[in-house]
């Protein structure tokens, strides 16, 4: 722009300034500064240029050597204005390299804002919400409407009239329960002449058990709930009790503060209940990995980041994740503050590697209700017995001394009744390459495997492998890194004709064997299938060193009945999981020491082998590991005394074993859900990670909250519970606004703040700021009553408007942000499927329970899955499981249900609070061709055919799908379609037969197949109507 024209512009602008409307800093100025300037002149101290910041009052009004950045009333004297109009490109702001530009309109706005006095305000969402006065106005039914009509009037628009009753009940039913209304309910509502008919309807719908299901469906997007771990092998994760908790929390109308506290910190609530613990699963819904080469510190940092990001989006509407590598570019969240938030989540007992198991600790067993009382009793009993054991151990020294004085001796590590006789290893007949030699100590002879040869050991005659056993021995780890088999007793299987290249179901030889891979030991038991207990990468055997190993099996044909002890310490296996052993692992062959088939233990040695006819307990395993030191080690000697001599201690141990056994029995009947658990021996803390990198830890920080928000009260604990309470503090300016905005978004399609995930500087300003604040205060002061807030919105006249548009409304309010008409938009994918199932009568109404696998095209899982993943092959359910609500569909994160994904469902890999809503041809293909929906169309046709004639039949269909009868013109269209389809299928009955056979449920008999086929297509037409797919 030429200087002269600039000047002209300035003159024009200043002379007209007084006549012009005031510039709104929040809506018109801050967003421009944020977008064009904050990147270099904002909160991030590390990239701030020229020491100038424009995101604070101090920075904006600072005086610099060359003048004031912003001189109120004096645009020409303001550096800001000078620099954006600079003629020399090199000095003009924003610089070309930033790829940012200011439009002339924006420049004019900035100038006018300064002319008008440069009023400045803190970013709106960081200031406390106070209840604004409700505007005057005649239109409407509750305060919401006054705000809406005021904004409409400002644009010269009028609200739409109320929608007709059929539209209203369908809209409300879909929004409250996610399901279309039953025809009888529609008719009752249409006929209800009471003035409160609509309010009664809303109140009734809000207490439906489907209300909680529908609300939960939105919440589970935010919670990133799914049924698999997410990364790499992406195995099953048992988590559905958490989903049930969410559904019931909505149905019980748990206040939002309690809802929040229990999900963020249910495990830390005083006198917590198991329900509160289940709720704490919110932050166990994140994606996890068990990829072989993963580095645990890196993975743990990733989980903490996800938890901070999710918490910030859901409760604060802030994109905190941006501050993990550097200070936030736009919002006042420093990198240090990000890690202070991360600290709340880093004191967890969770192993970052998920183990590819369905129940990665910490988990909670949720026993069936009939077992609940006993489960609690046992929990108390175990604690009591453990205390008594500790006490007895502390008191036992005098008794031990007395026993010693009376000549007590150390005879055998475990009660000899359990022992099975074995020859000494050096007495075996040995092949060349197997040599007797030194063991871990002089008194324990060993066999050294120098070559690929083995030794044969006859098993003790009384040994019954299938009844349970213990193998205890010393092992010398070879120096090579190969895979080994240490010993085995097994029979090869007949060779199979393997044609499937990916056959990962091959079972190892029947029997048992001890393998080592990556220096991690495993015991496998194979009958018809195989169960294993495998150590972890954290406890690898050391090359060239002896270790003591105990493998125990309790004989209960369940993988969870296998135990591994290394050097006397029980190992948490890397392959937990509730696999059941089928068939028997007992085989009638000798034990092979030093290998199995072509696998050997070359370079290793074993010593001190003992076999027992039952699983030893942890106490016994401990003694076995120190048995070679029993003559010298005082602790070992006392242990021996307690377990083998002292009747009291041994009795306690027996009780403990019995209690644990019973607990395991109940656990096997129980469901499992993932929960949060704090480490008890440390306090929450985190390190600032330089550039977000796990291997570049800097300062250690304590848990704390961002300084821009009100501080945490001193009385709050510095843990997740404190964080949750802080979020719900009435002084927090964000939580209530963010929560009511999401409710609004569910009903009206777009939030009052469109960017419902971002209330920060780069988010969109609210369309109705006063209404948002009014709702936020109302929500808080109602005691965080969610059902009440939904009720308020549903009962507003704004919600009840007709959705019919006019050209004027489309011109002035194209996206209906002002609500110049009622909300009308496409149903989400789950709702589309549920509509088909519900309208047709196919839907199973059951609430809650494990996830189900309905129809899914072949190959969706296999295409992406790892060999060996337990979610590699999709096995479709049958019966009612096919017809459950979509909320219960099994969600594999690396391949989500395609019919949902096509309708913009998120992958549930990260927190999502706002779904996109596209219309693509692929969606039409789903609703036209998905067998699930074709079957539903046929079912709807069947319902219709029970009626006597064309019109009555059509009424059945449209009343279920659309809640209204067709008019004469619409009936004409269907009549024509039906006639043509009837002619087609009458002449091709075999085609008709194919169509009505789609799906597992059988077509009802009694209707001519061509007629049913033709009506099936009619039903599909109706369910595919734009009107059906919209609310």
């Amino acid at each position: 722009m030429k200087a002269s024209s600039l000047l002209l512009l300035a003159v024009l602008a200043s002379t007209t300034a007084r006549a012009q409307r005031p510039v709104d800093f929040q809506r018109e100025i801050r967003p421009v500064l944020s977008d064009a300037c904050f990147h270099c002149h904002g909160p991030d101290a590390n990239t701030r240029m020229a020491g100038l910041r424009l995101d604070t009052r101090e920075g904006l009004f600072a005086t610099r050597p060359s003048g004031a950045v912003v001189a109120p009333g004096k645009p020409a004297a303001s550096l800001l204005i000078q620099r954006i109009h600079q003629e020399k490109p090199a000095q003009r702001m924003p610089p070309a390299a930033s790829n940012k530009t200011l439009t002339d309109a924006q420049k004019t706005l900035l100038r006018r804002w300064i002319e008008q006095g440069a009023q400045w305000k803190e970013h709106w969402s960081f200031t406390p919400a106070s209840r604004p006065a409700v505007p005057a106005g005649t239109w409407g039914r509750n305060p919401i409407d006054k705000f809406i009509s005021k904004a409409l009037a400002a644009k010269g628009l009028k609200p739409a009239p109320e929608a007709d009753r059929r539209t209203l009940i369908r809209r409300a039913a879909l929004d409250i329960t996610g399901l279309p209304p039953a025809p009888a309910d529609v008719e009752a509502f249409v006929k209800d002449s009471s003035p409160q008919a609509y309010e009664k309807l809303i109140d009734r719908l809000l207490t439906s058990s489907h209300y909680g299901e529908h609300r939960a469906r939105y919440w589970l997007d935010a919670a990133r709930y799914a049924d698999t771990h997410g990364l790499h092998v992406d195995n099953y994760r048992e988590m559905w009790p958490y989903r049930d908790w969410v559904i019931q929390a909505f149905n019980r109308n748990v206040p939002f503060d309690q809802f929040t506290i229990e999900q963020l910190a249910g495990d830390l609530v005083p006198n917590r209940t198991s329900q509160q613990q289940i709720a704490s699963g919110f932050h166990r819904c994140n994606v996890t990995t068990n990829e072989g080469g993963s580095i645990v510190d890196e993975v743990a940092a990733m989980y903490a980041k996800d938890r901070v990001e999710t918490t910030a989006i859901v409760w604060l509407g802030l994109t905190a994740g941006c501050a993990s590598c550097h200070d936030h570019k736009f919002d006042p969240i420093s990198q240090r503050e990000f890690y202070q938030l991360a600290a709340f989540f880093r004191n967890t007992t969770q192993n970052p590697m998920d183990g590819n198991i369905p129940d990665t600790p910490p988990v909670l067993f949720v026993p069936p209700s009939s077992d609940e009382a006993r489960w609690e009793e046992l929990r108390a009993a175990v604690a009591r017995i453990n205390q008594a054991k500790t006490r007895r151990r502390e008191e036992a020294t005098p008794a031990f001394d007395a026993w010693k004085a009376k000549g007590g001796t150390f005879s055998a590590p475990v009660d000899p009744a359990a022992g099975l006789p074995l020859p000494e290893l050096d007495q075996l007949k040995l092949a060349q390459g197997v040599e007797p030699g030194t063991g871990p100590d002089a008194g324990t002879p060993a066999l050294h495997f120098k070559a690929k040869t083995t030794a044969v050991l006859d098993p003790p005659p009384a040994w019954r492998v299938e009844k349970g056993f213990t193998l205890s021995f010393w092992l010398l780890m070879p120096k090579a890194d190969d895979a080994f088999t240490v010993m085995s007793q097994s029979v090869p299987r007949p060779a199979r004709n393997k044609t499937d290249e990916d056959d990962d179901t091959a079972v190892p030889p029947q029997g048992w064997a001890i393998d080592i891979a990556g220096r991690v030991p495993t015991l496998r038991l194979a009958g018809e299938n195989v169960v294993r207990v495998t150590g972890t990468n954290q406890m690898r055997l050391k090359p060239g060193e002896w270790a003591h190993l105990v493998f125990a099996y309790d004989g209960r044909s369940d993988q969870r009945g296998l135990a591994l002890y290394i050097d006397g310490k029980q190992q948490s296996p890397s392959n937990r999981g509730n696999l059941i052993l089928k068939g028997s692992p007992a085989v009638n062959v000798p034990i092979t020491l030093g290998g199995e088939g072509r696998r050997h233990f070359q370079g290793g040695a074993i010593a001190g082998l003992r076999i027992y006819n039952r699983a030893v307990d942890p106490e016994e395993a401990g003694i076995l590991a120190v048995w070679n030191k029993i003559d010298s080690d005082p602790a070992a000697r006392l242990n021996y005394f307690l377990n083998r001599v002292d009747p009291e201690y041994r009795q306690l141990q027996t009780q403990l074993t019995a209690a644990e056994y019973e607990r395991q029995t109940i656990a096997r009947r129980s469901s499992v859900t993932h929960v949060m658990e704090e480490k008890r021996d440390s306090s929450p803390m985190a390190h600032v990670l330089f550039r977000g990198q796990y291997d570049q830890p800097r300062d250690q920080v304590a848990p704390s909250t961002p300084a821009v928000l009100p501080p945490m009260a001193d009385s709050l604990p510095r843990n997740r519970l404190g964080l949750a309470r802080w979020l719900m503090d009435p002084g927090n300016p964000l939580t209530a606004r963010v929560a009511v905005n999401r409710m609004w978004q569910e009903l009206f399609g777009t939030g009052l703040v469109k960017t419902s995930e971002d209330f920060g500087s780069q988010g969109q300003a609210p369309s109705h700021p006063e209404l948002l604040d009014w709702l936020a205060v109302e929500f808080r002061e109602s005691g965080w009553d969610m059902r009440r807030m939904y009720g308020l919105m549903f009962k507003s006249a704004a919600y009840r408007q007709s959705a019919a548009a006019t050209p004027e409304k489309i011109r002035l309010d194209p996206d209906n942000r002002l609500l110049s008409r009622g909300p009308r938009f496409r149903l989400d994918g789950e709702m589309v499927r549920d509509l088909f199932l519900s309208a047709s009568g196919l839907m199973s109404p059951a609430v809650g329970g494990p996830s189900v696998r309905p129809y899914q095209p072949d190959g969706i899982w296999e295409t992406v899955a790892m060999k060996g993943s337990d979610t590699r092959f999709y096995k479709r359910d049958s019966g009612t499981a096919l017809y459950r609500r979509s909320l219960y569909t099994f969600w594999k994160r690396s391949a989500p249900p395609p019919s949902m994904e096509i309708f913009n469902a998120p992958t549930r890999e990260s927190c999502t609070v706002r779904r996109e809503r596209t219309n693509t041809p692929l969606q039409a293909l789903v609703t036209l061709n998905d067998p699930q929906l074709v079957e539903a169309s046929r079912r709807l046709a069947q319902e219709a055919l029970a009626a006597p004639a064309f019109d009555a039949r059509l009424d059945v269909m449209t009343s279920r799908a659309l809640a209204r009868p067709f008019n004469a013109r619409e009936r004409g269209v269907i009549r024509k379609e039906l006639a043509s389809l009837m002619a087609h299928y009458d002449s091709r009955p075999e085609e008709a037969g194919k169509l009505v056979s789609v799906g597992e449920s059988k077509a009802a008999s009694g209707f001519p197949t061509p007629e049913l086929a033709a009506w099936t297509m009619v039903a599909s037409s109706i369910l595919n109507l734009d009107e059906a797919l919209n609310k």
Partner: protein
Amino acid sequence: MMNPADRRILLETRRQFFARGSSSVGALALASLMNADEARPVLPHFPGKAKRAIYLHMVGGPSQLDLYDYKPQLKEWYDKDLPETIRNGQRLTTMTSGQSRFPIAPSIFKFAQHGPGGAWISELLPNTARMAGDMCIIRTMNTEAINHEPAITFMQSGSMIAGKPCMGAWIAYGLGSMNQDLPSFVVLNASHTHPKAGVQAISARLWSAGFLSARYSGVALRAGGDPVLYINNPDGVDRGVRRRMLDALGELNQIQYETNQDPETQARIAQYEMAFRMQSSVPELTDLSKEPTSVFNLYGEEARTGGSFANSVLMARRLIERGVRFVQVYQRGWDQHNLLPETLAAQCKDVDRACYALVQDLKSRGMLEDTIVLWGGEFGRTVYSQGKLTADNYGRDHHPRCFSMWMAGGGVRGGTVHGETDDFSYNIVKDPVHIRDLQATILRQFGIDHERFTYRYQGLDQRLTGVEPARVISRLIS
């Protein structure tokens, strides 16, 4: 957010479009019309050489040491330990970090020089070697990721954390559609043949549009069942029945529109008509019966077998021919932690001839000049053996510091070899190409400046190459 004036124009355009009938508008254009609340970028930034790309991703990480990065002197290092000065603090995966030693495993394969640039290429790739004159081999690719999940995600989306759009989605978003009835970005998952090949997981997130609109995400073209999900009518519904049904549906929707005046309702009508047209364009696409014998002579008979790599690249050519912008082919099985000599040979056999055929086929159709073909994995493999090293068997762990990829077509400088690694193919000595550099270079060929090609998300102008520096490597392109 679009300003109201633009919005109005768009709505008017939409009305004209529906008044005119929809038969001439492509799927993507239609989708944009139906749901536009964002302005598409003004692209290209400058004239580009490439209009489309086929990206052959060898999932698992092919061994550069056995294919393109020839190190004859390693023969003398057999079973000796990797010098600590070479390893120089490189972090290792936990699969080998516990290994007591790192014995060097020289490649057992023979190499020879090919093409005008004298590129050393392994005997495992005899056909690929024949087109060395078309290829630009980059020996100095590098990444920071050392495990598959983050590494593949990084390669595809410029970030190790899931959630960013992949390259195909970026290009679909940036350049839009060139065809009537097919998506702009299509994904194929090819099978492999060796039962013991090291298979890694992939996932739908690798062809997702991330924070871009879902309309830019890759549509999987499947070898089994419906080639595009739900494309086939149910049994007992032929095209005539579908037409009659859609006629009624359209009429009823039109009646609705007269009452509600909602433009979305008209969009719905068009959406169903587009679906109907896809129902004929997709079968036409996947029907290979009209491909002449010469094509199968070139690609090999296995190109007739749905899902094979040869079939997938032939399909890729057909997609490109029909105006699809970006075709992503994944082949798994390249994770050679053990049994490398046997399984790597099998993987190469799966792809070697087909890669050659694809490039020649594109060339003979005059399409190579504006189509980029890209081949490679997500990282390289270690010079030392994972697990037991013998004279004829070894495995290799993941290696991020250097690996090899090649490009052809689309203005890429053929017959060249770029970059040098040290004697152990462990560190880069000269001309590194970070994966961000590769992404920037590919965008450059499409006429896109990677720094200016942004999308606003979470308040930030996000880009494929992220916030770390990325350079266009001009020596790779002409």
